[in-house]
């Protein structure tokens, strides 16, 4: 088991190095720079600005200097927000985004698993079709549509929930979590339905029924664990996706998360911020994929034995 984790972590190093290198050079290929603005900048001023950010060095020197800083965990100063470091911006935005992603994942799991399991228990009946059609709508409905609709209904017309903000008033986390979680709920519903259908036709389920267990125990004690394996395998990428994909929801609800900084950084050519958040998110994605692999192995007896044998 430890060998498995160790080797996966070692594999992550070249992956991250490639991510850093490709990002570093790719953003420099994009036309325009961080100091271009609608009003022409005096050449002397531009030169002074570039010197303050080491842009006067050759690209390769900048690259090695960046790697040097990175090895101390220093992601450099932000171009767009002078006086703030990228570390600081990430430290401010990430906890918010992580919290939002966590709630969204909970919403997605609760709704998705319930809908998926219900559907799988009576396939090809109304109990299957209704939740699955709703799931289909969930997949098709982008959050930039769902968010404003929820806000209009619950925020503006009913006046039950705040229309924006994060942690300012009770309940302002409800709508963003639902909006962000909805699309994932739909995926999870379909995954758990498929997983459950497969498991429910296995021999050991028949055995469980044969020994006289009530149906709900068959489902909860025997079927769920096997049926949820595809869902668990999806959780790692889903959480990473929620983290990096929360931009739209953060914008709609004015949430001070990392997603907004990340996307704006690309528009602003905020080189250090783009690199910093990319490296940070790439690391997270690697870690979460690893975690979900471990979890999946733990849930699947065959994989577990295989790992133990190593």
């Amino acid at each position, binding site marked *: 088991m430890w060998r498995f984790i160790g080797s996966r972590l070692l594999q992550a190093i070249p992956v991250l190095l490639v991510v850093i290198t490709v990002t570093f050079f790719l953003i420099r290929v994009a036309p325009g720079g961080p100091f271009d603005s609608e009003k022409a900048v005096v050449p002397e001023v531009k030169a002074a600005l570039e010197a303050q950010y080491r842009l006067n060095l050759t690209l390769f020197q900048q690259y090695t200097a960046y790697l040097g800083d990175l090895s101390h965990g220093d992601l450099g100063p932000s171009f767009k927000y002078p006086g703030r470091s990228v570390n600081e911006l990430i430290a401010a935005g990430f906890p918010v985004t992580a919290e939002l992603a966590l709630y969204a994942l909970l919403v997605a799991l609760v709704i998705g698993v319930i809908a998926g399991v219900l559907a799988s228990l009576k396939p090809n009946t109304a109990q299957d079709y209704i939740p699955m059609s709703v799931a289909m709508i969930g997949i098709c409905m982008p959050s930039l549509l769902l968010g404003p609709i929820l806000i209009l209904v619950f925020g503006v017309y009913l006046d*039950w929930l705040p*229309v924006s903000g994060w942690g300012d008033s009770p309940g302002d986390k409800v709508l963003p979590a639902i909006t962000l979680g909805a699309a994932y709920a739909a995926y999870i519903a379909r995954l758990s339905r498929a997983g459950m259908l497969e498991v429910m036709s296995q021999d050991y389920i028949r055995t469980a029924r044969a020994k006289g267990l009530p149906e709900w125990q068959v489902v909860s004690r025997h079927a769920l664990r096997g049926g949820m394996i595809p869902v668990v395998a999806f959780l790692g990428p889903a959480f990473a996706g929620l983290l990096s994909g929360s931009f739209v929801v953060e914008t709609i609800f004015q949430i001070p998360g990392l997603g907004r900084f990340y996307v704006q950084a690309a528009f602003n050519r905020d080189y250090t911020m783009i690199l910093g958040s990319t490296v940070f998110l790439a690391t997270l994605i690697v870690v979460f994929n690893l975690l979900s692999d471990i979890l999946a192995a733990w849930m699947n007896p065959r994989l577990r034995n295989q790992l133990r044998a190593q």
Partner: protein
Amino acid sequence: MRFGVLKFLCIVLTCLALLACGRGESNVVQGNRDGILHFGNGAEPQGLDPHVVTGIPESLIINALFEGLTVKNPHTLESEPGVAQRWDISDDGLTITFHLNPQAKWSNGDLMTAEDYVWSWWRALNPAMGNQYGYMLYPLKNAEDFATGKIQDFSDVGVKAVDEHTLQVKLNTPTPYFIQLMDHHSTFALHRPTIEKHGKATDRFTPWTRVENIVSNGAFRLKDWQLNRRLSVEKSDTYWDRDRVKLNGIVFYPTENIASEERMFRVEQLHYTQTIPLEKIPVYRAMEDSPYANAPYLGTYYYLLNINEPPLDDVRVRQALSMALDRERLNNTVLHKSNVPAYSITPPGTLGYWPPKVFDHNIEAARKLLAEAGYPDGKGWPGLELTYNTSESHLKIAVALQQMWKDALNIDITLTNQEWKVYLDSVDQMDFQMARRGWIGDYVDPNNFLDLFLCDGGNNSTGFCDPDYDKLIQHQAPQAKSRAERYAIFHQAETRLMEQMPIIPIYTYTSNHLIHPSVQGLPPNLMDYVNFRYIWLDKNQEVVE
């Protein structure tokens, strides 16, 4: 099973309803009671260092925290005493003496002195600082040479502290708008000991503007700053005119998404929005006692023409393109009557200046000009590409104009959208045929628009170069004896410009805000200038519905 789903829904809805009970009173009601203005500020400020930042969201906050030598009256835009109690201008217009208010203090209680200004302007102009608005101080004698590194000794620059409260300024040429520039944040005085305590004076990255460090001199001081969430200021008890400040505080929200901002206004989370979605304008305009405030703004939306390249190297083609456009119709349809059709680069009524109207919407004349240029009824037209930065509103306008050109002249225009920075790069390199552009004035004076098109103007971007035009703007106008004479020279210059048509003006901007009826002392003006000192909240005003 249907019961299960229903039950679940019931539980969720009950939870939501319970949460709703905790909502309490809105920001607006609470703010009106406590004297706190909730202000939609458009974006998270880049920073708060007045010599570093460049945007409008930053300047609004800085105007609450700091004060210049002068401030603007929000009704008339004329300069009023700020830190300077009064000022004298010499007869030749070259020397200005500012007399500082002896009551003017920093927020830590230190007195403000003329020496603060000398040091601050050294910082603002210092080449190492990379201040993008340093040029605001270029009217000062030798300032440009110092800022570009041609001279090293700041004592040669035309600013001197005569005594503790007297600041003497020497200019290159008479500059009538210099007094106005004193309310721009790049000319503000900063607290030297604070800045030096946190690092090198010319370093952009020091934390001196953080809540726990900052020392300012304005009507408000920084209370709380939560990144991308809100920034709060409270009334300063060291400000010299504190008795006239009516607000107890302001909360600035980084309302980047304009649809969200409008919803926040609807549920009374905001007193004031930075803008309003275009499609909501008719709805708000139709309301009784509408909170919608629309006023002319010192900015022009126009298309740049690259006059070095055919077919736009022919002045007749440029004129034909401009005359073929029905700006009134564009404004009435696509823009929901929210703007003003433009026929010149300078916005009408810029501090009493009215630009010439050299041409008008005239399809017949446009067709004739195009035929003379060799494209009768669009025959042989080589095609033309219009470049704009990606945005829904620019697209809508471009599509409408494309159709007008097709209908009137039977010529094809292709549209190309580019991401913002790519577009800026194309404009800078003059890698375009026709490109969208907007210009917002830094100060209220025709000069700010007309000097764009000087031969070496950094924002010219058209290839236009007319030595006679340059002479009018650079030599004759500064020597004018009166405002009337000066404006006559500008009028003459702008007529020359519009006859040669290196740009196609489309509309004059307007400012568009939603303002809660309780907000008083916030009049519309050409610069969309907000003087927070004048604002007060009237509790008795009924709520918007």
